[in-house]
């Protein structure tokens, strides 16, 4: 039953905010719904960890450790982002960049977006998964274009067209999947249920599945932001409101990658070859290297961190591509760390940009002089995302790189190069923003930095100590992915 609560709360939230979203306390309501969602998610998680995978609604929903951990992560980041967006959006409104109706749109599509992602995560039906992904895209398109500035419109348009096309290809992949499946499972609803497919994956037709995987990978990969399908990502992240950038980076990319992984499991079963893995490794490496070099020339802070998201998704994809218990474990860990850290960074960046009134890094200077908390939040977040211990991102990068060196040494020079360049570029740009002199005044209001430091604290904690049950949970998930 939790599942229906889990999906129902955000959807009703969306409807509710769509109807009454104009009132003053809409942000609080938004946060409240997110909190409820989080509560349900936590409850669900507890049950899954206790009782193992479960099917709900005669097989329409399937929850195992893999997606339940993403569900919790999604609900959690969604909640903290809602908390962050409370003051943030108010200030945007005061600055006159938004009005009440837009805020209503914002809040309701925010909830719908969350609901769509949760649906995508929990559904057992590959078709519904596709539908949910598309819905999430549509919801975020509206969010990206919220400011109605030319730039945001352009970003939203590109986002829509590119992801729409990608998603369409993914649909074709799904069709092929169904086409292969119905010969074994018979036509009708059950033939797209992942659990059923997983049961018979070895019997599925290899040629069809390899074809299907290509379409699925290109399709969902577009949303993951794998190079060279990533072109929409920096624009959408840079031009949308910062909370949206946070959830896009922190959550949507994960969900898309989740879809890819679900398909990969089936394809691996059917082909019994490394094809899927190698493809993912290739895409991953390409993304890491390309993103690293693209970061170097950025001038817009949000754009830069968007590219860093591409880099990290590439790293995760690479790790999943390598497969094996350690690599999968590392990839899942990195997913978590990246979501938490990157959203924290976007929170800090959001306040920094509001303070400077510009997203150009050359305009943001000497944060720790006037707003030490923002400054340190940004500095520590950056250091964390760059994979410096004791923050958790390092834990996963440690596992990924060492495993890569052990399994696929040929790939490590690229990783070394990319990590070095990315480090130089990002840190070299962030340092003057945080340190140094500035004439900018203090922020007139109290920034919402609790989320930032909660996230960073979690990342720090996970870098030094991963609670056993969390570890078991990761292990189960890694095992599900064919570790």
């Amino acid at each position, binding site marked *: 039953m939790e599942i229906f609560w889990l999906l129902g709360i955000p959807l009703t939230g969306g409807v509710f905010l769509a109807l009454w979203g104009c009132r003053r306390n809409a942000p609080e309501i938004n946060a409240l719904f997110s909190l409820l969602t989080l509560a349900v998610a936590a409850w669900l998680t507890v049950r899954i960890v206790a009782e193992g995978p479960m099917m709900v609604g005669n097989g329409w929903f399937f929850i195992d450790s893999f997606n339940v951990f993403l569900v919790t992560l999604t609900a959690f980041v969604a909640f903290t982002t809602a908390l962050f967006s409370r003051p943030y959006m108010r200030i945007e409104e005061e600055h006159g960049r938004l009005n009440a109706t837009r805020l209503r749109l914002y809040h309701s599509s925010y909830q719908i977006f969350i609901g769509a992602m949760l649906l995508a995560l929990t559904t057992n039906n590959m078709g519904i998964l596709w539908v949910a992904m598309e819905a999430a895209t549509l919801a975020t398109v509206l969010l990206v274009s919220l400011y109605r500035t030319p730039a945001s419109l352009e970003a939203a*348009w*590109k986002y829509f*067209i*590119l992801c729409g*096309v990608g998603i369409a*290809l993914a649909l074709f992949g799904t069709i092929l999947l169904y086409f292969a499946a119905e010969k074994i499972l018979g036509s009708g609803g059950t033939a797209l249920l992942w659990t059923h497919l997983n049961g018979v994956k070895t019997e599925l037709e290899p*040629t069809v599945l*390899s*074809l299907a*995987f*290509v*379409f699925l*990978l*290109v399709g969902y990969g*577009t949303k993951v932001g794998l190079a*060279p*399908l990533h*072109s*929409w990502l*920096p624009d959408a992240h840079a031009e949308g409101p910062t909370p949206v950038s946070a959830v896009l980076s922190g959550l949507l990319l994960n969900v898309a990658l989740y879809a890819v992984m679900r398909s990969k499991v089936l394809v691996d079963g059917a082909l019994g070859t490394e*094809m899927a893995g190698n*493809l993912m490794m290739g895409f991953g490496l390409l993304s890491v290297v390309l993103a690293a*070099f*693209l970061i*170097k*020339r950025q001038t817009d802070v949000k754009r830069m961190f968007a590219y860093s998201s591409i880099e990290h998704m590439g790293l995760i994809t690479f790790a999943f591509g390598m497969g094996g*218990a*350690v690599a999968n*474990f590392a990839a899942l860990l990195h997913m978590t760390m990246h979501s938490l850290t990157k959203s924290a960074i976007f929170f800090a960046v959001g306040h920094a940009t509001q303070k400077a009134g510009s997203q150009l890094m050359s305009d943001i200077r000497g944060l720790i002089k006037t707003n030490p908390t923002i400054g340190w939040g940004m500095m520590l977040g950056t250091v964390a995302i*760059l994979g*410096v*211990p*004791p923050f958790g991102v*390092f834990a996963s*990068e*440690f*596992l990924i*790189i*060492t*495993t*890569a*060196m*052990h399994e696929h040494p040929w790939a490590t020079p690229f*990783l*070394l190069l990319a*990590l*070095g*360049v990315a*480090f*130089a*570029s990002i*840190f070299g740009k962030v*340092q003057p923003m945080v*340190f*140094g002199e500035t004439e900018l005044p203090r922020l007139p209001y109290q920034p919402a930095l609790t989320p930032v430091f909660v996230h960073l604290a979690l990342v720090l904690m996970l*870098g*030094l*100590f*991963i609670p056993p049950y969390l*570890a078991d949970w990761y292990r189960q998930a890694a095992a599900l992915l064919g570790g």
Partner: protein
Amino acid sequence: MPVAFLADSILDLAWGVVLFWLALGGASLLLHGSPRLLTRLVFPLGALGALGIAGVGVAGLILPASAMVLPIGLPDLPFHLRLDALSAFFMVLLGGAAFGITVYATGYFRSMAAGPLALLAMWYHLFLAGMVTVLLADDAYAFMVAWEVMALSSYFLVTTDHKIPEIRRAGFLYLLIAHVGAVSLLLAFGVLQGGEGDYTFNTMRLAELTPFWSSAVFLLALFGFGAKAGLVPLHVWLPEAHPAAPSPVSALMSGVMLKTAIYGLLRATFDLLNVQIGWWGTLALALGLITALYGVIFAAVQSDMKRLLAWSSIENIGVILAAFGLTLIFHTDGKGALAALTLTALLYHALNHAFFKGLLFVGTGSVLHATGERRMGHLGGLMRAMPWTAWLTLIGALAIAGLPPLNGFVSEWLLLQAFLFTPGLTQPYLDMVVPVAAASVALAAALAAYVMVKFYGVVFLGQPRDPALRHAHDAGWPERLGMLWLAAGCVLLGLLPTQVIGWLEPVVLMLTGQTLPGAGSWLLLAPVSTERASYAPLIFLAVVVVVLLLTYLWVRRVYHGRVRRSDPWDCGYPEGDARMQDSAEGFGQPIRQIFEVFMRVERETPDPFDRKPHYRGDSRDKLWLLIYQPIDDLTAWLSKQAGRLQHGRIQWYLIYSFATLIFLLVFAAR
């Protein structure tokens, strides 16, 4: 088993000190309101911790190795800690130097503003904790975490004064190179690991690697640790970062942190890799000698006193690395005793460097404090104004110049002895290499003397180049105590070599499986045999002192002690003033003239009619242009090319997707 129990308990003690330091760090953040408490309570407690670490180290040299597992870390990989002779020795080094430096710091930081001071205190103790954990770590993850914590905290210490752009640049360069080095260490561990995510050093010790892969590990480790140690050409960050930090921090970084890199190199090469290959040694020897000469030459032409010391650290690291290479050569050649000798020299020099470099850096700290001036061209004559600092620094300067009977000479002596044994080597080409190597070591030592005369003479002797310097205040008592401790270390390490070498024996035995034959007595240092070579610093000192006193008394008795004061002889040129003394640039000029090939010299010479003639000669590192600039340009070019992909036309973006799809359909979907 009481001994084992004792060993475990000292390991607990060491970890306890780490936690204590972490707690101090946290506390100092809470105490940001009260700077008095910070300097008068937190730093002294930190110094106590350092003393404890030194004690642990001494005990660990005697007691058998002990290990423990902490409940933190990765799920399948909790932190493993282990205290064996090697880490114990480096803990003695760390504790010994850090104690003096921290005592010094209690006085040094008193003038600092509360807020920055709290942060600094936090990072300072985090830094100490990180270094000790590096020495204790017994699995790759714990090691890397500690390693990077060390780098990160020192970065924040370096950028304490982040308002100055140069300092920010220095910090950035430092952290960047440290990070790249760390990644290459990761790769080394990746090769060593047994797979299945087992990263404990124990499994690595058992790993059977092909020569190719073990060489790969060695090279990666050499790169990673070399980046931290300031091995040429990875040294560029060091002359920038070390001067930028507050002096006690510079002292810690130069004196102690660089040694953790040496520790890592020894650990990886002799402990983790279960087979060594000869050419590694030759490579390390060559690199070490290049580093030593490069460092000392550049030290000679510096005009900023802390920068000069930083370059001299590079030189010393080079000497240590040369010793490391020689150890490898002997070890792989089956000359156990000689390997033991060179290793002893290596460890001894590391220990010495920790003390005298720490002493010199804190000395410059006091000068900086009293005068606010780092450029030697604006200092001078401080011996009158601040005698304590001057005389204590003199000890450090003489020690680092490798003069008997101080400690710098002992390690050089041991190293040079090692060169005299090489005729026994089996590879003949080494016989050719060795004389040159010995010559370069000797040359580096002689140049070090040059550098130190320049450093000491320009800063402390002569006339003050700025009238304000006459009223410079001497260091306060905590500073004096700290410097006294370090100076005493220099003297004692110089006078009691046999005892020290006795302490080093377990380490040498652990790494080379051999000990020195060690003839000679408590008085006489004779590493191999008394016929072969011997040195007795105590007698040495005694004779010098006796002769000195006798001469003095004799002169006084037979003749007289009358003294008349007058102006110095001005060669008939009355306008001579303090500005006419040799400036730092002037003193370095011959060296620059001889070794100009290595440098990019920038000169500003005044024309004859200048009202205010001004001369500036600046010698820059040519390697920056030769290596780093091209790399930077290349990445910039590549990123420019990459940027072209992202040029805004949605049609093109669609084409990317389309092309990708077609490509995959053609090649993958079969």
